[in-house]
């Protein structure tokens, strides 16, 4: 659900792949944490937030384009992650779980932390909803009336970082960005206002996630993959329905 909220902003601002790159960074920091036997969430959260700021800063600078910055970070951190895990103990079940996601891997402390982060993301998004709308829809106008656009860019990347941290464990680092992109694309097909788009994305993402989870239990498949497949099916259905 968080992912869907953020997705609205990220997709419209053309930053949707930032999620992917942050998840790769999450992978690197997770394998680092596992190698030293520390709880991955505690290490990953600050690292991902820091890197999200760095990516935002680089893409602000205009010397490096946003997508290039994202490319550099995601492949770079993936390489570091692979390096760390192969040097320490090779690919074991834990790392595999982090890459492709697993519900069973979520323990009580992860759950508490996730709920806490979810509340932060949700309330920040709610408070700044109108501002985010303005910054996303027309940056120049926002700047001209004296709004600190840079602050909101960093707020967006901060929220994106938190979202990735929450979703990483379940969806897996390789598939988390789908949670950000799919619900928005689906919701966009059937809404003409920003408000309905936001609400609809949250609903779509929630329903798809629930269906994916049920499917993953029934068929004994990884949850990340089943959620993505459900999302794709929904997208296809909606597109076909719209065209009739």
């Amino acid at each position, binding site marked *: 659900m968080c992912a869907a909220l953020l997705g609205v902003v990220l997709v419209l601002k053309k930053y949707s792949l930032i999620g992917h790159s942050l998840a790769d960074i999450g992978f690197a920091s997770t394998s680092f944490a596992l190698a030293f036997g520390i709880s991955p969430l505690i290490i990953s959260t600050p690292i991902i937030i820091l890197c999200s700021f760095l990516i935002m800063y680089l893409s602000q600078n205009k010397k490096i384009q946003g997508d290039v910055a994202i490319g550099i970070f995601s492949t770079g951190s993936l390489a570091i992650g692979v390096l760390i895990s192969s040097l320490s103990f090779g690919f074991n079940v834990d790392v595999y779980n982090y890459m492709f996601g697993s519900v069973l891997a979520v323990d009580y402390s992860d759950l508490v932390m996730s709920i806490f982060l979810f509340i932060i993301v949700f309330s920040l998004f709610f408070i700044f909803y109108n501002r985010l709308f*303005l910054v996303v829809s*027309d940056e120049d*106008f926002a700047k001209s009336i004296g709004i600190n656009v840079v602050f909101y860019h960093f707020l967006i990347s901060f929220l994106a970082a938190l979202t990735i941290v929450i979703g990483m464990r379940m969806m897996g680092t390789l598939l988390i960005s789908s949670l950000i992109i799919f619900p928005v694309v689906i919701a966009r097909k059937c809404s003409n206002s920003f408000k309905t788009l936001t609400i609809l994305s949250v609903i779509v993402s929630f329903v798809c996630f629930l269906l994916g989870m049920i499917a993953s239990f029934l068929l004994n498949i990884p949850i990340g993959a089943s959620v993505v497949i459900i999302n794709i099916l929904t997208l296809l259905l909606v597109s076909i329905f719209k065209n009739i």
Partner: protein
Amino acid sequence: MILEAKNISVTYKVGHRKNDILKDINFTIEKGEYLCIIGSNGSGKSSLMKALLGLVPCSCGEVSFKLSKNEISYLPQKNTILSDFPATVYEIVLSGSQKKGIILPFYKKENQKKALYALKLVDMLEIKKYNFGELSIGQQQRVLLARALVKEPKLIFLDEPCAALDEATSNRFYNILENLNKKQKTTVIMVSHDSSQVEKYATHVLHLDKKILFYGKINRWLVFNKSVKCIH
């Protein structure tokens, strides 16, 4: 005086070369003036406007306002809103009422009333629930004007507002502006191509070609313009 530009220069870097876009621009604007910035393509009109608004950094010089940013509004040249942005006309107009500051950015009843009034002013009230992306360019431009007017600014910047409009619509557009300028003493700064409109509405003219060629009242401009034409 509400705005003063002192020695503004703007330089863009293209590779290793520096391109001077504007050089030593000096002028002041009083309350209630209607200033048209004119000049050929590439003369730096839009850059001047962006420099005044702080969207483009000045390489030297400074711009000082005697009013707060909350009393300034801006209508961009190309609509920078992605043309397929999923928002309704009403949402976009309402977003114009946001102000700078740390107050929580929620809309009040009063803002909603003003948004509806602004929509009425540009004759778009019936289509307030439409998707912005589905409108024609002229309609989009009118929506953006409503967005610029919704906070009842004291100073409004317009960057070629009528470039994409037909004659009837742009006349309407100019009439709305004239009303604001005359009745509410809203100061207007506009980049324009259309010389007949400049002569009809402007009180001051700034003719630009990287530096100021002419700056002054409209009646002096008409004399100046005639004498230039005579020489040619």
